[in-house]
């Protein structure tokens, strides 16, 4: 055996030169991502390892930065809606909703009750959709393969439902400033009702696979804990903070789109670990189901669009019969609508936490500035605190429990 090839190289070093931060200890730098099965996209985490223990974790983001905020400045207000879909591609309707609410607030438009309820129903389905993807991938990360397929079975139904409504499975862009883009299709009640009827049983099924599974418990309990103060300090929101014991849900504390008319609970846990986040999201699945069922059953009648001719595209029917409607249609499509100057910050509870749109208008038909306060960006800051001092395997579970979407982080 000729041994001409040089074997020892820095890549294979478990025992590197002692770094300045970890004087005396030998560590290895592991570049996790941007292409790694468990970073859920293009997140890169630079891990400094001592054996399999993480000494230091430094997240590196921006690989999916597409400059959506800049792009918004070049679009008319109504043209921004499809862009918001691409921010958090798993909770597109939440983003649609938040943006529409913000602009409606600027415009001072009141959305009809039927549209509000429909929005609530669809955003809750979006939440279910997003949580299902989270549960599936999270379980897959920990090695439970079957849960993934079970979750995607229900997600498929939701996607088909969305397709029925908007013609698109993921990038629905279904909400418009002033209401809904299209009238709901015929037979939508049956379609939505059919899904909602079976869903609780499906959640039980997921729990059957995981809840009492000793390996699952061992992998999730007391993993990924961060002190509550640290979490608040870092601006963590959503299920993460609810799993830490704070019963804060924007749907309750600052109701929007008629959420105060619905009866639901805000699930909380106090353990503040991966397990608690899992439990909180599982409960949220049930609560979302409750809200969606209520919305479906009590769906009020009436128009789907606000009575704001300068903002809302006119009916096809009217356009062909009324001159005025045709003019409005022409003006809205070609030069958009003007929005009074000012700024608003509208936040909603997205599946991941506080989703806020800070929209600044300078009085023209294009937004001067759209800032997206995305939940994943805020939540991801907690990573170093969560990973350091833990094992690599725990980092996978912890990462999954944050439930971030890279589109949401990088925008």
């Amino acid at each position, binding site marked *: 055996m000729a041994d001409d090839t040089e074997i020892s190289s820095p890549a294979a070093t478990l025992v590197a030169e002692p770094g300045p931060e970890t004087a005396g200890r030998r560590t290895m730098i592991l570049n996790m991502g941007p292409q790694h099965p468990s970073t859920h996209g293009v997140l890169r985490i630079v891990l400094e390892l001592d054996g399999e223990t993480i000494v230091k974790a430094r997240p590196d983001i921006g690989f999916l930065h597409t400059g959506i905020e*800049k792009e918004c400045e*070049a679009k008319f207000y109504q043209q921004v809606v499809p862009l918001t879909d691409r921010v958090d591609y798993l909770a597109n309707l939440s983003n649609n909703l938040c943006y529409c609410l913000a602009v409606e607030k600027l415009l001072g438009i009141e959305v009809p009750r039927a549209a509000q309820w429909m929005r609530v129903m669809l955003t809750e389905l979006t939440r279910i959709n997003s949580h299902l993807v989270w549960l599936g991938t999270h379980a897959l990360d920990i090695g439970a393969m079957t849960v993934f397929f079970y979750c995607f079975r229900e997600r498929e139904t939701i996607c088909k439902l969305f397709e029925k409504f908007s013609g698109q499975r993921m990038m629905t862009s279904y909400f418009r400033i002033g209401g809904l883009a299209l009238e709901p299709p015929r037979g939508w009640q049956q379609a939505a009702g059919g899904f909602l009827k079976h869903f609780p049983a499906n959640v039980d099924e997921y729990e059957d696979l995981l809840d009492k599974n000793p390996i699952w418990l061992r992998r999730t309990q007391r993993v990924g804990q961060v002190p509550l103060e640290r979490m608040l*300090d870092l601006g963590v929101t959503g299920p993460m903070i609810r799993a830490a014991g704070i019963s*804060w849900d924007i749907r309750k504390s600052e109701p929007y789109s008629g959420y105060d008319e619905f009866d639901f609970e805000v699930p909380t846990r106090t353990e503040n670990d991966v397990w608690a986040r899992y439990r909180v999201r599982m409960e949220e699945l049930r609560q979302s189901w409750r809200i969606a069922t209520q919305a479906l059953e009590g769906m009020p009648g009436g128009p789907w669009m606000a009575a704001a001719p300068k903002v809302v595209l006119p009916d096809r029917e009217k356009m062909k019969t009324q001159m005025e409607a045709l003019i409005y249609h022409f003006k809205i499509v070609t030069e958009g609508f003007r929005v009074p100057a000012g700024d608003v*910050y509208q936040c909603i509870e997205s599946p991941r936490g506080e989703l806020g749109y800070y929209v600044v208008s300078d009085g023209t038909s294009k937004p*001067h500035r759209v*800032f997206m*306060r995305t939940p994943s*960006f805020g939540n*991801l800051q907690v990573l170093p605190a969560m990973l350091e001092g833990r094992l690599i395997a725990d980092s996978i579970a912890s990462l999954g429990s944050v439930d971030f979407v890279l589109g949401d982080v990088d925008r």
Partner: protein
Amino acid sequence: MLSEELTQIPAISALAESYGAAILEGGLSRGEAALYVDPVRIIEICRFLKDEQGFSRLSGVTAVDWHPVEPRFEVVYLLQSLPAGQGGPPQTARLRLKCRLHGEAPEIDSVYGVWRGADWYEREVFDLFGIRFREHPNLTRILLPEGWQGHPLRRDYPKHGHKYDYGEET
């Protein structure tokens, strides 16, 4: 100088009492309170609001560029308090702080010391607007690559990027 409605909000009246001179302007529109404050004293004000008035959360930090106008930049802090409600979810109050900065080498103190969560937001503002945050522990580009030229969210940064500027749209 603050409007009647604004001073009825306890946190703002308390702030006006202690830091009256630092509050330059204030307004309440569409139910949202916003204060323009002196950029020099931003840390003190934030600390006061966090420690005394319960604004324990920083939702985000961003900026707005009013390009031809000077002072050009507005740094916006989105604050939120989370006091526990009576037997229910916390009652939240929101407040916006704004600081105007001049376009020549804009600089402001970092509020990282007050809320750790400001870390990435300030880096993002630095990255996209080129506003420097003094005393920030790691002020580097966060979304764009290290060697990127310019700050894209400035209004004078072409919307189609440098290479593809056809001169039609600005």
